[in-house]
Structures are given as C-alpha cells and as structure tokens.
C-alpha cells in the first residue's frame, strides 16, 4: 500500500470505514459512495483533511461509511453545520451529503444561503424523488400526480428543479449526474471538489424500495440515449441514440429539433459553462422529461470569491492594521478610571 516510505498512496479502500454499509440491496446510494471514495483517491486527499457532513435520511448515513471525519447531523441542517466546519478550518475539504427531502424540503433555506454565500462546500444531493428513510412520502422532487403514502390520490405539488433553485441563489458550480454512470459521476465530483466556492452536484439515485425505477427513462438502455443530453462546454447540444437531435434557442426558450431537416449543428445552442450570466443554465435546469432530454453534466462553473476567503481577508487586514489582539488593550479600551 506504500510505494515510498513517506508517500503512502491512498486507494479507495482507505476511505472506507469499518462499519457495514446498511443500505438496501440494490440501493443507488452505493455507487455514489464509491464514486466519492474514488474521487478522493484520485486526488490523494489525506483522510484527515476530509469532513463529510450530512443531515438525516437514507443518504445521510453516508458519513458513517467513510474513514474521514464526519458529522451525521440533524434533518436539513447539514449546510449550516458544514459552514461552521469550513469557517473553523478552511483548509479542510468539506462535503455535504444530503437527500431531496433533507436539502430541498426542511433544509431549503440553508441550501439557499450556503449557495448565496459561495462558501467552499461540496454539496451532493442524492435525489431519489422520495422520502426513503421515513418509508415513502412525497418529496419536493416527486412528480405532480405521484401516489405515495402521504399522497394516495396523487401529489398536487409542483416539483422543484433543484439546480434552478440553486441558480436563483447564484450558485457558482452546478452539475447533475446519475448513479448508474459511475465514470461521469466521478468526473463531476472531481470537478466539484476542485471548485472554489460552493459546488452543487445533484445525483439522480434509485431508491430500490420506495421509488424503484423512478429514473428508468434515463437508465433503460432502450430509451436513455433519447432522454439524456450530455452537456459539454463549447459543444453544440446534440443528443439521441443516433445523435440526430439537438437543442435550439428560440428567443429565450429552448426547443428540441431534429438535425438534417434544414437544421444543422451550427443552428444549435452551444453549451457555455463559464457564461457569467446564469440564465442559460437556468433554462437548461428546467428542461425536463418528457418534453425535453434531461441534461447531465456541468451546468455552470464560474469563479467568484468564496465566503471563507473574504472572511479571512478581513481578519488578516484587521490584524495587519491593529496588530494581533491584546487582551489588556481590549479590556482597557473606552473610558477607564482608577480607584485607589
């Protein structure tokens, strides 16, 4: 396991804790766990430099399975807990592991504010479109009309597009991947990990028990190529089993077109991850099955100062100006007098 005495090479095994992984057989969470472990190994991140912070849900058991530091916190609050970790030790790599209920229902506000601060957290949302741990209630990402234990007559809520919400709060890195494409998942996670500021990755995940095959339109070999649009920076948006379909911009709206019938690649929308304005990404984030192919890949990736960088800049600047804090001086500031 050690190539040179002082340079141990970390492998995916090193990131595994000694606890049995207790998700259901067939659960989509397994592959995300592996992908994150691979992402760490690929980047040789020392185990002690990683903190995984989660909320509550099946997905949120994640930290227990990692031989890193970790906090299995309370429902919805992981981004806030992680904010504290990051501000205490900005040099750590802090992952937030959350579910669709955890991040978007009870935790929606912390999600939003972490993003707007652009604090250096890697938020991975395991989206199975259901409350799994509590045995199958509707979640904010469940489709309208969906029958669940809490919506026996069908859900009457409009599902949330998590990336659109994140863009509303000006996320600087947003991406989507799916549990059954581990390679792409790992690539995206690595990019998220290397991003400064908040990185948000939505991962479609299959809950084998309470929402099995919710994403079959994206995983079924027959249909998936017609339903997935892989986003590639600088490339025109082409998709389809025969790569004969594309996305065109009409005004500010997108349209699915078939190539060939008077439409050529040049007419298609070209993806731009680094576009300063989040509007393109916003439009993509709302494209949904069945009207549109589902975009997978990086929606947005821009640079902006992180919250922690700005905070420590202020600390540094103030210390430079005033000198390091001196209690005697502090105590005696303002009007003082002496009693003899």
């Amino acid at each position, binding site marked *: 396991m050690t190539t040179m005495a002082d340079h141990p090479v970390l492998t995916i095994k090193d990131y595994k804790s000694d606890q049995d992984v207790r998700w259901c057989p067939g659960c989509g969470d397994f592959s995300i766990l592996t992908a994150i472990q691979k992402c760490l190994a690929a980047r040789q991140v020392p185990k002690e430099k990683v903190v995984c912070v989660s909320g509550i849900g099946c997905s949120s058991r994640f930290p227990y399975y990692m031989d890193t*530091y970790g906090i299995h916190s309370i429902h919805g609050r992981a981004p806030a*807990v992680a904010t504290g970790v990051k501000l205490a030790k900005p040099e750590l790599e802090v992952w937030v592991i959350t579910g669709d209920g955890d991040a978007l229902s009870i935790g929606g506000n912390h999600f939003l504010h972490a993003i707007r601060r652009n604090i250096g957290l890697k938020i991975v949302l395991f989206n199975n479109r259901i409350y799994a741990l509590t045995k199958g209630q509707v979640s904010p990402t469940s489709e309208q009309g969906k029958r669940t234990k809490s919506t026996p007559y069908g859900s009457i809520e409009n599902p949330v597009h998590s990336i659109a919400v994140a863009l509303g709060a000006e996320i600087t890195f947003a991406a989507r991947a799916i549990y059954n494409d581990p390679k792409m998942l790992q690539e995206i996670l690595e990019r998220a990990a290397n991003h400064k500021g908040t990185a948000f990755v939505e991962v479609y995940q299959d809950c084998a028990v309470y929402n099995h095959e919710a994403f079959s339109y994206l995983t079924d070999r027959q249909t998936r190529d017609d339903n997935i649009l892989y986003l590639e920076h600088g490339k025109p948006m082409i998709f389809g089993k025969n790569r004969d379909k594309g996305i065109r911009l009409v005004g500010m709206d997108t349209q699915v077109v078939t190539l060939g019938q008077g439409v050529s690649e040049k007419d298609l929308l070209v993806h731009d991850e680094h576009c300063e304005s989040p509007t393109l990404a916003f439009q993509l984030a709302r494209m949904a099955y069945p009207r549109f192919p589902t975009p997978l890949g990086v929606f947005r990736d821009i640079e902006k100062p992180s919250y922690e960088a700005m*905070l420590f800049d202020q600390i540094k600047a103030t210390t430079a100006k005033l000198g390091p804090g001196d209690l005697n001086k502090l105590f005696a500031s303002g009007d003082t007098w002496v009693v003899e």
Partner: protein
Amino acid sequence: MSTTTSSKKAMATTGKRTETLEQAVIRFAGDSGDGMQLVGTQFTTASAVIGNDVSTFPDYPAEIRAPAGTLGGVSGFQINFGSRAVYTPGDTVDALVAMNPAALKVCLKDLAPGGVLVVNSDEFTQMNLAKARYETNPLETDELDKYRVYKVPITSQTLLAVKETGLNQKAAERCKNFYALGVVYWLFDRPLDVTIRWIDSKFAKVPAVAEANRRALQAGYNYGETAEIFSVRYRVGKAPLKPGRYRNVTGNQAAALGFVAAAKLAGKPLFYGSYPITPASEILHELTIYKNFDVRTFQAEDEIAAYAAVLGAAYAGCIGVTGTSGPGLALKQEGIGLGIMTELPTVIVDVQRGGPSTGLPTKTEQSDLWQAMLGRNGDCPAPVLAASSPADCFWAAMEAVRIAVKYMTPVFLLSDGYLSQGSEPWRIPNLDELAPIKVEHPTDPADFAPYRRDANGSRPWAIPGTPGLQHRVGGLEKLDVAGTVSYDPANHQRMTELRAGKVENIAAEIPPQEVYGDEAGGALLLVSWGGSFGAVRSAVERAREDGQDVSHVHLRWLNPTPRNLGEILSRFRTVVVCEMNMGQLQMLLRARYLVDAYGLHKVRGRPFMVSDIRAKIDEVLGGR
C-alpha cells in the same frame, strides 16, 4: 434620595447648602432624538470616575420610533450612584430631568415625593403639551407641588450659549442635552473634565460641534452655580470599591469581552454564530469588531443555522458560542440536543426577554429557565449558569467556556434584558487573575476512541486535520467508548446515564453556596438567581440593617446546584424564591430538595424593585 437620607448634613459652598447623600437615583428623560442615552452614559462615567459605585438602566421606547414629542417616543436613562455598594438602577428616582412634556408625563410616577424635577420649560408649548396629551400645562397647575421643581429654559439658554460657534439652529439645539447635563453636574457636584475630554475626542473632526457642546455643558453648570433657583446641592462620596482600573460595561459588552478572553486563554479561535434578536444583538455587534483576535462572527440565516454552524465549528476545534433570546432559543433546541448527543463544547447565551412568544421583546424577564434546562426532546441534560449583574456577564462567560471545554458539553449562560442593557463599573482584571483554560486535543491514534471518557466523564476533543483520529459523530445513539452507531438497549441506558452523570460531575467544582446573612439558618431565606441579584441583595442588606432575620442565597449555578444547597435550605423556617417568572426555579428547588419554597413572582417587564422584596420580607416576618 428619599431612601438614603440617613447621613445628610449641611455645608456651605458658594453660599448654597450642600447635602451629602449615601446614594441617589437620577433619570434623564426626553424624546428619542434628544440624546438622553448619551448624557446618561456621561453622567455614569463622571460618577464612576469620582469613585461612586454605579448601576444604570436605559429605558427605550417600544421598538419603533414614534413621532417626536409623543408619549411613545420617550427615551430615558436612569443612574443609581452611591458611596455604598449599589446593586440596582434604583426603584424610584430622586432627580428627574424632563426635556419635554411627554417625558414628564411618562416618568413622573417614578419620581419620589420631594424629589428634584428639572424641566426644560421652553418645550412646554401648546403643541408639545397636546402631543403629550396634557390638557393643561402642569407647570402652571399644582400638579407638581410635591416635588422640588426647577424650570430651566434649557433650549433657549443653549441657543444663547452656543451662538458664537456659528452652528445652525438645528445643530445648536442638539446641544441642549449637554446643557441639561451641565445643570445636573452642578447639582450633584460632578467634575466636567471627563465629559469635556470625551466631547473633544468624539467631535475631533467637527471642532465647531465640539466647541458648542463644551459651551453648552459649561453654561448649564454655570447656570446652577449662579442662578438663584437652586437652594441646595448634593454630594455623593466615594464608595469602598476594590482598587484597580475600572470601566463601565453593559452586560452584553461584558459577555463579549468574556468570550474573547476565554478563547484567548484557551488558545483557540472564537466562533460566534448568531441571528440578530433583541436584546442579544449587541454581543454580535461587539464581537464582530474584534477580528484581530481571530474572532469569527457569522450572522446566520436563522437561529437554527447559527447554532448548527457553532456546532460544526466546535467539532473543528473552535470555541463555539451562540447568543439569542427566548424565541431564538426555542428554535435552537433541536440543534442543542445534537450538541449534547455529540458532546461538543459550545456555549448558548440566552438574553431573556418578556414572553411567551414574541411577548415584550424589549422588556426583561427570567422566564427561560425551564426552557434552557428541560426544553429538549429526550433526556437531554445540560449545565446552566446565570450572570448576576452586567459586569458579572464577563466572569460568567469565561466560566461557561471553561466548563464547556472541560466537560465537552453545551453550556447555557442565562442573561436577561436588564443585565444586557444595564451597566455598572467593571474592575478590569489583570491577565494573571484569569485562570487558564486548558484545552487538549488528542493526537495519538494508539489509544484513541471517540467516546472513551476521562475522569470528568468527558470524551476527547479530537479535531479534523489530525491524522489517524478520523471519527464520526451524530445524533443517533452511540456505542460507549467506540462511538459507532448503536441500537443496543443496554448501551442506550448506559449512555443516558453517562450524559446525566457528566453534568452532575460539575457539582464537584462549583464552590459551596455562600449565604449572605446567617449561615446557620433563621426565619427567612430569600433565594434568587440571575438579574434579580441586585434587588434582593439590596433589600436583604437594608432589612438586616433594620434588624430583620432574613438571609440571601443567590444561585449562580442552576444546573447542577451547589452540593450544600439542600442543607442550607433546610436551615430556614421560610424559603422564598424571588424570580421574574411564575416560579421556575421554585419548582426545581421544591422537586430537588422537597423544601416547601414559596415564590415571589413578578412579570412586569422590569427588574424587581428593592421595595418589592422588602414588602415580601415584611409580609413574611410580620412587618418592621
């Protein structure tokens, strides 16, 4: 002054009589825009500098600024100063400065009969009287006959005094608070130099304003000296204060200083996560300035996030502190439960205010004791201590941090609206008076287990970044020692007991309870906690001087309680718990010690008055 006339004696100064008082209470009252808080603070400092003991309390109007001159807009600042120990801002006012009719209307009820009343007669115009809902001008009726009324044309005198500075009318008028202060300085024989120095430094960049305020102050003083209207002048001598350097602090300032000091002593960064709420916000405002102490303040999106971030920061090795008031504490409780389960050191300051719900947000109360101690899901014990005076908030903050890191636990520090906004002189400690705060982070993987306990019952504080000590904490029950998730029934029982035992262990280092009065027992014991200290101590002090058989126990620690407390309670015939709620500590003492404690309950948005307590003493002991 009415309560302190015991040692008056006449003296001849500049042809006027001087009375020496043990203690006096003065209140400045005017419109929100009149700068009353400012001159109140100046008076406080001047009094402190000449050696008085001092206690102050600002009395703001309701949160929203009402139109000028109306009753809703009255802002007051009260100072109690004495040559003996002063514990409260005073029950009644001996001297009232009323800058307009509204201020007179609002405050007159608090002025002691025979008290001094200085009114700005210029402002008693038809319009202002109407705004204050006066039908007739009280200066022209017999309404004020029982007071020593001094009608001073403060506004016009001020304008005259500052004319030469060239300020415009509006700016010139703004100096009238300093004129009033000058009058009062003369009346109570205070030196002007401290205030002049303050004016000079405050307005260094606008010399005309500095000059004007100086002139107004001096003119007011001269008015007292020369005008014929004052027949008597008062002097309050030095109090026997502990020697040292002093400054005035409010409770919130003191708490902020205490946390900075504690973090520094522990050698750790301070992380203060909070969400603004009255009356706790100033702790955030103070701490956010001290960036060169590596203080990291975080204004979170809400209270839940504030505490969650504090917990995260504590996990990663910061001194984690949050501050809030009642409704905010309610929101933090789920997170605090996580803090107790994960056994991470954090401090929760609750600056209590009038409840329930939004209640009386700018008023004081002591009604969060149950919430702090018992208001979480599950068996979820945490240490609770309460500060007893504004300056004591400094010491209590230090103590809360020390216990938190030693016992690896969230600790509640209870303050209240009165302590937080009130001020008193704080003797600035030498650094060597501050006990060090020992923090150890393990580094050796060899014998590391995240829930292996030390002699205090505390688990190790291993922090991220330490190679080989990777471990996970969380809200699910954890296996003893190993710290992995455990659903084992016997383990849950054991861990529940260990958590409770750890808090009980703290009793070992709480000093035995002191009794003010008769250690051996007697007819009546008053028990207080938190901000009720001052009123109860004053009352008992005076009652004992009057020969009444009453003693006082003031509890700093509410959970756990001092080991000898039960013993003490049992030695008194009657025990009365005085608290600004409907009987929260009373209930806890009854349950713990099976003592038939009575309660003196007051929820009127204001601290106890000394007279409330004395009345109770008289009631129990059968009158003086």
